[in-house]
C-alpha cells in the first residue's frame, strides 16, 4: 500500500498499542484497610527543610510533624485550646518561671519495617524497648537551639528558655540551657521571664523529642522513611520525594483524650499542584483536595461540589504597609486617605473570590488574644470613600499642596505573582477613582522583593504575616512593635509599645484581649501605619465519605478523621 497510508497506519497502531498497554498495566491493586488520600496543605512539591523538627518552617511540614511527634502541649484544632500532649499534666511555679511537665510513661519509639510491613518498636543493643523520656526532649530542644543546626525557627523558642537566645547566638553552652530532666518522666523548663503564652510555645514543633542514637547513626539521612523513628499516632511508611508521603497508624501510641488512636489505617499525602489535585479529586482517587481558585465559581454553582467545599482557617493576614520615612506617607491624613479608599469587600468578592475575609485590622481573628468580628464589630477600618476624600483634603492642606496632582510620584511594590498583581491593579483603580491619585505599580521578582523591603521599602508595599504560633503577640509584638526587625513601616508609637509589652506578660486573657483591641485601633485607625486588606482562607473540597473535624488552626488532625459509615 502507499507510503502515506502506511504512515497513518503506523501512527494509529502506535496509539492503540499505547492505550492497550496502559489499560492492561494500569489495574491498580486494591488495598485493604482505611486509606485516606489527601492533598490539604500539600500544594507544591517536597516539604522544605526535610520534615525535621529542628529545621522545618512551613505549614506543609508541620502538618506531617504533628502526626509523627507529639509535643509537650497539644493544640486542639477545633477551639485552639492548649491540651496535654506527651504529658499527663504540668505545673507552673508561683513566679511563673518554672514549668514542670509530667510525661506520658512507656510510649515507645517506633519505626516502620518495610520487610515485615508493620510498625515495630525500636530496641537498643540489649534488646530493651526505647521509650520517650525527658532526655529525648532535651536532645530535641538542644538540637533546635544549637547554632550549628541552623534552624530557621529556633528564634521562636529561644526567648522562652533561660540562655536559649544566648546559646543560639553562640554565647552560651548547651549545659547552660534552662532545661532539666528531673527523672526519666519529668521535664523541667525554666523561662527567663513570666509570659502567659509560653505554654503554647513549648508545644510547638521545634520543641519535640528527638532520638539521639538515630541522629548519630544516620546523620542527615535520618529523615528518610527507612531510617526515621517517631512516636506519635502515625509513623512514616514511605516518602517518595516530590510525589507523596504515606503515614501508617502506630499501634503503640497509647491514645489520649487530646490525641486519640487513629481510626484510619494509612494517610497518603500527595504533593501535587492544586489543578492536578482537583482533577484527581473529581476522578475519585483523592478524598480531600485543594481546588484551584479559578474553579471556585464553578464549585459554588455546582449543587454537589458546593456541599463539599469548605473555606478553612489560614493564619495569614495581608496588608499594604506605608513607609513612614517616605513622603507623602509621613503625613497621617494621607495614610488615612489611602487606607479608607480601599474597598476591601470588593477585593475579596470580585478579585480573589475564594472566600477570603475582608479585614478591619491586622492580627488574625481566631488566635488567642486577637479581636474578632463578633466581639469587636466596629474596631479598625473599612471602606469609606467620603472619609478618604476628606482625609486627602486635610493631608494636602498639611503639606501645602493644592491638589492630588501635586503629590510626589507614589509607588506600590509587591512580589510578582498572579494574585498580587490582580489585587494591586484593583486597589490602584480604587485610589484613582476615589482619590484621583495615580499610583505606579512595581512588581518585583519575589526573592528580590523580600530583600528590598527589608532595607528600603517602597512608599506602599505589600506584605503578609502568617502566625508562628496562635497568639496575637506574634502579630502585634513581634512584627509591628517599633523595634521589630519585621516592621518595615518604620513606625513607632509609645502607647502601642507599652500596650503590647504589658499584654505579652499578662496571664489574664480577658485583659489581654482588651489591650490588643486597643493596640489594633492605634495601629490601623489612629496612626494608620498600615492598611489591612484581607485574611486568608484555605480552600478545601472533602468527600462526603469522610467523617472529618473542622480545624480552626489551619492544621488537620488526621487521628480524628474516619470514613463515614
Amino acid at each position, binding site marked *: 500500500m502507499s507510503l502515506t497510508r502506511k504512515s497513518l497506519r503506523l*501512527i494509529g497502531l502506535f496509539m492503540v498499542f*499505547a492505550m492497550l498497554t496502559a489499560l492492561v498495566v494500569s489495574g491498580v491493586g486494591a488495598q485493604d484497610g482505611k486509606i485516606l488520600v489527601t492533598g490539604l496543605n500539600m500544594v507544591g512539591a517536597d516539604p522544605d527543610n526535610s520534615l525535621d523538627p529542628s529545621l522545618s518552617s512551613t505549614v506543609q511540614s508541620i502538618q506531617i510533624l504533628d502526626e509523627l511527634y507529639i509535643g509537650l502541649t497539644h493544640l486542639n484544632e477545633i477551639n485552639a485550646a492548649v491540651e496535654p500532649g506527651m504529658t499527663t499534666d504540668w505545673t507552673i511555679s508561683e513566679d511563673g518561671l518554672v514549668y514542670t511537665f509530667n510525661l506520658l510513661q512507656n510510649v515507645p519509639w517506633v519505626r516502620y519495617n518495610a520487610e515485615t510491613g508493620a510498625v515495630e518498636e525500636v530496641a537498643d543493643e540489649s534488646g530493651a524497648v526505647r521509650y520517650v523520656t525527658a532526655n529525648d526532649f532535651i536532645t530535641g530542644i538542644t538540637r533546635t537551639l544549637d547554632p550549628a543546626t541552623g534552624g530557621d525557627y529556633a528564634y521562636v523558642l529561644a526567648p522562652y528558655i533561660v540562655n536559649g537566645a544566648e546559646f543560639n547566638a553562640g554565647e552560651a553552652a548547651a549545659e547552660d540551657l534552662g532545661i532539666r530532666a528531673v527523672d526519666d518522666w519529668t521535664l523541667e523548663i525554666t523561662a527567663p521571664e513570666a509570659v502567659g503564652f509560653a505554654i503554647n510555645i513549648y508545644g510547638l514543633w521545634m520543641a519535640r523529642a528527638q532520638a539521639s542514637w538515630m541522629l*548519630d547513626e544516620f546523620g542527615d539521612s535520618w529523615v528518610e522513611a527507612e531510617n526515621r523513628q517517631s512516636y506519635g499516632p502515625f509513623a512514616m511508611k514511605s516518602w517518595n520525594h516530590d510525589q507523596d508521603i504515606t503515614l501508617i497508624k502506630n499501634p503503640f501510641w497509647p491514645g489520649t483524650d487530646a490525641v486519640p488512636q487513629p481510626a484510619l489505617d494509612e494517610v497518603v499525602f500527595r504533593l501535587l499542584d492544586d489543578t492536578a489535585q482537583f482533577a484527581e479529586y*473529581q476522578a475519585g482517587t483523592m478524598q480531600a483536595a485543594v481546588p484551584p481558585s479559578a474553579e471556585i465559581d464553578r464549585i459554588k454553582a455546582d449543587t454537589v461540589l458546593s456541599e463539599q467545599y469548605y473555606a478553612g482557617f489560614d493564619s495569614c493576614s495581608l496588608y499594604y504597609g506605608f513607609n513612614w520615612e517616605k513622603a507623602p506617607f509621613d503625613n497621617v491624613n494621607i495614610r488615612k486617605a489611602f487606607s479608607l479608599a480601599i474597598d476591601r469587600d470588593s477585593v475579596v468578592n470580585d478579585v480573589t473570590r475564594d472566600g477570603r475575609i475582608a479585614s478591619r485590622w491586622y492580627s488574625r481573628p481566631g488566635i488567642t488574644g486577637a479581636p474578632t468580628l463578633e466581639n469587636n464589630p466596629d474596631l479598625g477600618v473599612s471602606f469609606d470613600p467620603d472619609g478618604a476624600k476628606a482625609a486627602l483634603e486635610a493631608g494636602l492642606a498639611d503639606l501645602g499642596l493644592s491638589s492630588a496632582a501635586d503629590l510626589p510620584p507614589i509607588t506600590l511594590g509587591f512580589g510578582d505573582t498572579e494574585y498580587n498583581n490582580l489585587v494591586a491593579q484593583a486597589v490602584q483603580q480604587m485610589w484613582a477613582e476615589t482619590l484621583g491619585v495615580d499610583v505606579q505599580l512595581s512588581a518585583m521578582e519575589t526573592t528580590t522583593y*523580600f530583600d528590598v523591603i527589608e532595607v528600603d521599602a517602597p512608599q506602599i508595599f505589600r506584605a503578609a504575616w502568617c502566625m508562628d504560633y496562635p497568639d496575637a503577640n506574634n502579630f502585634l509584638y513581634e512584627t509591628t512593635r517599633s523595634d521589630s526587625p519585621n516592621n518595615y513601616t518604620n513606625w513607632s508609637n509609645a502607647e502601642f509599645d507599652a500596650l503590647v509589652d504589658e499584654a505579652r506578660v499578662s496571664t489574664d486573657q480577658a485583659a489581654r484581649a482588651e489591650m490588643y483591641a486597643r493596640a489594633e485601633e492605634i495601629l490601623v485607625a489612629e496612626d494608620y501605619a498600615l492598611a489591612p486588606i484581607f485574611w486568608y482562607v484555605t480552600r478545601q473540597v472533602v468527600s462526603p465519605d469522610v467523617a472529618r473535624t473542622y480545624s480552626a488552626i489551619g492544621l488537620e488532625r488526621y487521628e480524628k478523621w474516619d470514613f463515614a459509615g
Partner: protein
Amino acid sequence: MAQFITRRFLWMFVVLIVVSVITFFLMRAVPGGPFSREKPLPPQVIENLNKKYRLDEPLLNQYLGYMGDILIPKVTTERIRPNVLEDYLINIPLPFMGEESYLRWMNFGPSYKARSRSVNDIFEEHLPVSFQLGLVALGVALLIGIPLGVMAALKRNSLYDYAGMGVAIMGVSVPVIITGPVLQYLFGVQLHLLPITGWGSPAHAVLPSFALGFTYSALIARLMRASLLQVLNEDYIRTARAKGLSDRMVIIAHALKNSLIPVVTVIGPLFALLVTGTFVTETIFGIPGLGRYFVTSITGRDYAVIMGTILLYALVLVISNMMVDIVYGWLDPRIRYT
C-alpha cells in the same frame, strides 16, 4: 573518527568550565540569597548558616572549593556520618588502606532548601524519571512527526498535506499547559482509562509523554516535510525514477536518509531539553522529575542546585550535539571529519 571524538571531549571540558564560571558569578550577582524570606531570619541565624555552608568566604574561594569538590578525588580513612556537605557520587572502597577507607569523588554540594538532601540525592532520585519521560516523549514526537511529514511531502497540496500540516500547526500553537489538563480530564476524570498524575508504571507515562511529544512532533513534521520536498527535487532522485525504481524504493532507499539531516540537527538539542526535565509538564502531571529544580533553584537561590542542573544540561547538550555530528557521518557519507 577516534581523533574527532577525543577532540570533542576535550572541548566539552572547556565548555563546561566556561559555563560553570559564568553561571557561578552571574547567580551570585543577583540580589537575594538562599536565606531571604518573607519573614526575614534573625541575623544570627543567617550568620550561622553562611558559616555552615561556607558562604561567607570570598567568592573566588567558594568557586574553587566548589569545583575542587567535583573534580578532585580524595581518600578518606574514617567513617563519615551521613551529611549533605559530604555526599560523593563515587565511593570506591580501598580495603588495603584500612577498614573505613574510601576513594571519594564528585561532591556537587548540598541543597539549601531541602536541608537533608544533597545535589547528588536530587539527581539520583529525579534524573531517571525525567530521562524516561523525555525519552518516551521524544519517541512519540518522532513516531508521529516523521510519518506525518513524509506523508505531507509525498501528497503535497492534497488533503493529507493540509490536514497533516494543520495538525502540526495546532501542535506547535497549543502548549502543554492546555493539552495536559484536557487529556487528564478526558482520559482520567471522564473515562477513567489512565492515571491522572503520578509516576511509576507505563500507564503513568502515556498522557504526559503524549502531551509533551505532540508539541514537538509538529516541529519535526514540518521540518521533515520541507526537507523531503527539497530532496525529492534533486537530480539523483530523478535518475532513480528514470531507472525504473518504484516510488517506495526511491523514497526509502535514497530520499529518506538525506532528508533526515535537518531533523537530526534538531533532535540533538531537543533530546537535551526533554531528557533533563520539563517544568510545566511535570507540574501538571505530578511527575517527580528534575524540571522543577531548574526553576525553583533559581527563585530560591539554591546555589549548588543551580550549578548542578546547569552543568548537567550543558553536559547533555554537548554530548547530544556530538552524537548528532556522528550520525551526520552515517546519513551522508560525503561528510567526513578530520
